[in-house]
């Protein structure tokens, strides 16, 4: 059928988009913006029991230049917000952002003068995770949602 039958065994055809998205989605390296309690659950997410390596995301890169997904874990202070934004700006495109926990998503229980009420005030957030702190399973779910999102994107067409 089609081009594949004329090429013979050992070949298959796909779209460049699909191949790129498949590769990207299974190697989404997180940038762990570990701020507060959620950072401990983020460690558990990478740790032995929950094992983010199953999704190709065990490689925590503390350098923004090498990472794809920023996980904002914890409440965001005004003083820290500037540092987070600078790190976000340094990450290469394409990039995604997970707001982990109630504090990062909306300010959560910390409704007070020091905390930015949700990191979407200065970051484009792709996935919000509820919970205070969320269980590692919930973070894995958010990661899978990000993977779904990557798989449905037009990656090559947009890049050119």
């Amino acid at each position, binding site marked *: 059928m089609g081009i594949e039958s004329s090429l013979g065994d050992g070949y298959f055809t796909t779209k460049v988009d699909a191949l790129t998205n498949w590769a990207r989605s299974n190697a989404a390296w997180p940038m762990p913006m570990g701020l507060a309690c959620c950072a401990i659950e983020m460690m558990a997410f990478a740790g032995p029991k929950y094992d983010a390596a199953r999704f190709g995301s065990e490689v925590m890169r503390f350098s923004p230049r090498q990472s794809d997904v920023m996980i904002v874990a914890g409440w965001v202070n*005004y*003083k820290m*917000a*500037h540092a*987070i*934004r*600078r790190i976000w*700006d340094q990450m290469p495109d394409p990039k995604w952002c997970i707001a982990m926990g109630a504090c990062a998503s909306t300010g959560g229980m910390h*409704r*007070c*003068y*020091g905390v*930015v009420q949700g990191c979407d*005030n*200065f970051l484009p957030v792709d996935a919000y995770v509820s919970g205070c702190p969320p269980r590692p399973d919930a973070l894995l779910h958010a990661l899978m949602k990000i993977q779904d999102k990557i798989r449905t994107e037009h990656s090559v067409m947009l890049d050119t």
Partner: protein
Amino acid sequence: MDLELSDTLKNVVDGLSDQFSDSFIEVYQSTGDTFIRVEADAVVDICRYLKSTHHFIYLTDLFGTDRFTSEERFEVVYHLISLRDRERFFLKVLLPEEDPQLESVSDIWKSASWMEREVYDMFGVHFNNHPDFRRIFMPEDYDYHPMRKEFPLLGIPGSIELPSTTPDTE
């Protein structure tokens, strides 16, 4: 109210009322803790005396309180511990609302340095002769002292900047 002072604290109270009779104001107890109030201008001498004579060598905490009264509005509390006598008490001074100032005790206990900065940051009490006097939690550009009672819990809108959402040009 009757006081139930241990021997160590009795010595401290006797010593203070003897040596610093002008500055010693009162001693009282509340739920088992002892508080000694002294005049603000003698606090450095009193602290030095307590450290050298009564062996209160460990300053574990120093904090401010906003009483929100018209006079003597701010309160600074020194929390002292004597490891030798296994005793703790609180030394208090009261400060006026207008331009609250106090001498720093950071050359007596080095640990006072950050705690005094915290009191300044939260209440705006100035400490003179402090080696490194800056805000500690809030950025230096911030104009308010958040722990004062008139400051709203949610802060003052627009008083502190959010990062710009357009990427840097560099």
